[in-house]
């Protein structure tokens, strides 16, 4: 049974996986977007969201917790000072994954994972207008 066995192993030992995701997180927070395989992007999303949440907290303890994962102090500082503040109005969903086709060589499905850029952070507004549209559509539909 696969009860309680969430997550992917990605064909790696746990130490290999841990090291890989540390590298990937560092790259993601440095460059804001990285290209990788679908499966790795989906796993990275889980960890990255948690790191951003720590970034939003911003106290000494959370800073130390982030530095356990992202050893580059410049990138960690940037996370707390630049990246995390722009998500104050958002509860989760700090990353976005686009599927971008397949890799030459092994035909692996590739994705682009990015931190939601500053100008697109205001999602709640969009959702409200979407609901209005639905209501509008529902009210016009019966006629």
């Amino acid at each position, binding site marked *: 049974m696969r009860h309680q066995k969430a997550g992917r192993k990605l064909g790696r030992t746990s130490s290999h996986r841990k090291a890989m995701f540390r590298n990937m997180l560092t790259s993601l927070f440095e460059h804001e977007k990285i290209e990788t395989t679908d499966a790795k992007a989906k796993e990275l999303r889980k960890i990255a969201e948690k790191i951003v949440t720590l970034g939003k907290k911003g106290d000494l303890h959370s800073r130390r917790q982030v530095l356990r994962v992202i050893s580059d102090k410049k990138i960690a500082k940037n996370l707390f000072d630049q990246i995390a503040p722009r998500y104050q109005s958002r509860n989760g969903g700090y990353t976005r994954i*686009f*599927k*971008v*086709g397949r890799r030459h060589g092994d035909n692996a499905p590739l994705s*682009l994972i990015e931190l939601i850029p500053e100008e697109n952070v205001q999602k709640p507004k969009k959702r409200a207008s979407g609901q209005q549209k639905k209501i509008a559509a529902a009210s016009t539909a019966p006629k």
Partner: protein
Amino acid sequence: MALPKRRHSKSRRDKRRTHDRLSSPQTTLCPQCNEPKLPHRVCLGCGTYKGKTVLEVKEI
């Protein structure tokens, strides 16, 4: 041990294989550049997804 009594003709073999065809991948048209693209993927023709989001500029 069970063994075939007769060799199957080319015709029988080929008839069996009539159902083995491959189907072509489902595509949609990109609303931006009208090129065929795979659903739920970034359009590789113009590098857009869901309207305005230009993700990567691809040059040939």
